[in-house]
């Protein structure tokens, strides 16, 4: 029975195996992020860029770990984000939101003085959830 199950689902299993392979390298390396750790940032949007090859967010707020203040959040391509429900106007400057990110492994202060994270999920001002918002997960930039 088990073997039959395996046979019937071979393609799905193969696909799952592929999906579980850690996407270590995307368009550029995302190895700098600690994908075992999730930081919750509650704050105010100061910038949302809806642009290829990567969208990005800047948020000023309180972080569950690490340093409060300005964070720069790297996202994947807008076309991929559309499938999570993101739109060009999902965020506006001044919006109060919650973001979930994998932080940079080393607490590096970026050029603009912000901390860096890789997007996992968001709770928008109206309560809409996008991506994974249960405090777990690994972001991807592919």
């Amino acid at each position, binding site marked *: 029975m088990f073997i039959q199950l395996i046979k019937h689902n071979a393609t799905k299993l*193969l*696909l799952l*195996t*592929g999906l579980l*392979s*850690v*996407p*270590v*390298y*995307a*368009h*550029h*390396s*995302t*190895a*700098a*992020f600690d994908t075992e750790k999730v930081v919750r940032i509650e704050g105010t949007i100061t*910038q949302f*860029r809806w*642009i*290829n*090859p*990567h969208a*990005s967010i*800047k948020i000023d707020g309180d972080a569950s770990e690490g340093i409060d203040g300005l964070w*720069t*959040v*790297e996202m994947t*391509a807008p*076309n991929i984000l559309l499938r999570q429900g993101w739109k060009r106007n999902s965020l506006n400057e001044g919006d109060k939101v919650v973001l979930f990110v994998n932080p*940079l*492994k*080393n607490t*590096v202060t*970026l*050029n*603009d003085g912000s*901390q*860096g*994270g*890789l997007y996992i999920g968001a709770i928008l001002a109206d309560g809409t959830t996008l991506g994974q918002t249960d405090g777990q997960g690994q972001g991807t*930039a*592919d």
Partner: protein
Amino acid sequence: MSIYRNILLVAGLLAWATLAQAQTAEERRQKLSGSIMQHPGQLGALAPENLNKERPAPPFDLTGTWFVDLSEGFANFMFGPPYPEFIGQAKTDFEEGQAARAERRPYRDAIGQCFPAGIPMIMTRVWPIAMVQLPTVIYMISNFNNSFRQIYLDGRDYTNPDEVIYTYNGESLGKWEGDTLVVDTQYIETYNHYIDTGIPISEEFRVQERIKLLEGGEILQIEYIMTDPVNWVGEWRNTKQWLRVDNTDIGEVECLPDLNDNLPSTQAGQVGLER
């Protein structure tokens, strides 16, 4: 009455002057010849005279939009393992890159710093590639930074080595061998141009792609045979596949100067780049 006659006279003179100044397209091209890039003795790939030459029908047409097949693992965008035996600087760099990868540290993230991916890495970016095949040339435009390749099929020779301008995608010439399109590429720019985890190339780097269409044109398969006697021993071989994707188009993607201000990973990814 004389006013009308004078107006007609002036209009006639203006028309004559305009006609006298008009030049043929060829005359205008001559005027601009110092600015128009040329390769004397070789018709352009899109010249009607070149396109319309009699040639055998090609065994297949790559025209379409393709997406690299990573369904069996994301790491398949890389061209190894297996790897050849690296030598010299490449051996050191390969070991450093592997160590960084094992520790999930960035290393030589040149692409993240807006250096072109170049051949072969441009072919396996996680973006679609549009291909347009004509009798004389195949155009490939990767959606990733809209990187452009052209593979000439019109029987031309490589550019004179004393005049050639090295580029990240190199100069590619293709010829048909049975049901396979064989593409040889050389003149590949080496500056911050790496394969997989920071493996360098030299000016002796050569790539042969043996291209086939499988499953009635649904799968594009390319066998890569890469040589670089400065950096590794013998041939580095790897076979990749792409899936035809008819429900998408490529769009515009630019690596803007301030892009990395918004991408934390790229600010951390400069370790090991050439300066």
